[in-house]
């Protein structure tokens, strides 16, 4: 069974072709990596899956539904969560508030009821709080910073808070755009461990873009390689690593003399 399918995606901005006929499928329980040189169109693929870009051609299927024309907020409510390349936390809010916002789409009590109907709203809030505290904050080891404003945190910790916020949405698929970019070796190792644990303990399928080849080779199940908006290879890490097109894209071609 396929959880997420990208079928024949073509995206252009004016005359600039960003993606041409990219297709791949993600199976449940996979760590699925998208790699490729800078400007290859990797983030554009994530933006199409998340609903921020509308592709000119092609369809996207999630959980057996065609989500090509669904708005980003509804995709989020269906179980697509996202972390960003440039951290997109709500600055000025605390860590805990940021994480709780991840559950926004799932809260049942609305504006009026949360004003009038203290009972139900309060119960839901308490449940949410317990779940967030126990299964997300403890899990990601961020207890010590939970009441701090996010803007004051170090980069690696902000990335972790962003991950926590995405997990609070109880996603089926987590889209991660360069989860370890700019991290030191220790932070990278921690993040790789978290990603593996998320996959194994929480039944979350992960689609990630990454440049850190060691991490890709270590933890991913399936890798797709894009260059100049086209898919040039797909397979498990070992297959992809030795693929001639991939070597060419990353290292260049030997010139005939």
């Amino acid at each position, binding site marked *: 069974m396929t959880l997420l399918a990208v079928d024949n995606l073509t995206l252009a901005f004016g005359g600039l072709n960003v993606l041409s006929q990219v297709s791949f499928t993600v199976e449940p329980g996979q760590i699925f990596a998208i790699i490729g040189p800078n400007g290859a169109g990797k983030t554009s693929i994530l933006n199409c899956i998340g609903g921020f870009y509308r592709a000119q051609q092609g369809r996207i299927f999630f959980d057996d539904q065609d989500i090509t024309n669904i708005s980003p*907020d509804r995709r989020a409510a269906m179980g697509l969560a996202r972390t960003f390349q440039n951290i997109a936390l709500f600055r000025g809010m605390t860590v805990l508030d940021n994480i709780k916002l991840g559950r*926004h789409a799932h809260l049942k009590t609305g504006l009026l009821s949360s*004003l009038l109907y203290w009972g139900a709203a309060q119960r839901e809030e308490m449940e949410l709080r317990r779940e967030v505290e126990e299964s997300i904050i403890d899990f990601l080891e961020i207890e010590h910073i939970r009441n701090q404003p996010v803007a004051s945190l170090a980069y690696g910790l902000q990335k972790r808070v962003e991950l926590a916020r995405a997990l609070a949405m109880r996603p089926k698929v987590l889209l991660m755009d360069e989860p370890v970019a700019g991290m030191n070796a220790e932070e990278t190792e921690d993040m790789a461990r978290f990603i593996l644990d998320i996959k194994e303990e929480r039944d979350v399928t992960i689609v990630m873009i990454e440049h850190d080849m060691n991490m890709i080779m270590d933890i991913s199940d399936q890798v797709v390689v894009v260059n100049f908006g086209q898919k040039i290879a797909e397979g498990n890490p070992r297959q992809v690593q030795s693929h001639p097109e991939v070597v060419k894209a990353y290292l260049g071609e030997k010139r005939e003399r």
Partner: protein
Amino acid sequence: MDIFLQLLVSGVATGGVYALIALGFVLIYKATHIINFATGEFMMIGAYLCYTFLALSGIPIIPTFILVMLCAAVLGFLVERTILRHMLGQPVISIIMVTIGLSSILVGLTEIIWSSQFESFPPLFPRAPLDLGFVLVRSTLAYGFAISMAAVAVFALIFKYAKAGVAMRATAGDQMAAFSMGINVKTMFTFAWALGAIAAALGGVIVGNIGGISPVLGAVGLKIFPVVILGGLDSIGGAVVGGFIIGVLENLAGGYLDPHFGGGVKEVAPFVIMVLILLVKPHGLFGKEDIERL
């Protein structure tokens, strides 16, 4: 000393009304990053609606207030859906021009519907001035202040605790992230415009009740610029503090300096303060400075 206290108290009361109108501006700016130059005209429309329901249709005062708020919400909703929704992603200067154009259109419509004549407001409140023991406050100002503060408190509570308010804060923080959290950002824009219009319209009713109404009532709306520049464009607390400071300074400047300069200082003082603030602290007292952590 008596004069000082008198000026101070009426300054605080005026400032409360400024705070409410500035809140209408800040709610829209915070959520959508649109500078609404039609805030003053939203006030004016609110005042005319109140005048129509109360004086021309004879509806009692409480239902009138509810009707004014409903109509203002519809106005904000329509303006966002029909005009500004289509301006998403356009340059800031184009959007500002659109709101300036909108303000002229609203003035024109008002003149067509209600004529351009000055009208005095029917008395909303008991006429007896409020006696604080050491000073007297005009009843229109005292009640206006009370209503403003109540409205500001309600808006602040919604923004801080209600689900829609939290979603609005998230939208203000980062639109793409808000979308990814399942928040319908476009709905939040509409919601912000409706709330902003309600706040401005209530402010307009209070101002109209103090000084009568005409299509140029919206000019008072210009005074919110010193208020929000001082308080910070995107800070609700800043709008309140800024409102009080500008109200008091304006009144003191008017009371003490006007006799020496032959008048006019009261009107100019807020804008002198605005220029000084822009020179010294361009983000205002509580505004968000975009500090990047490198």
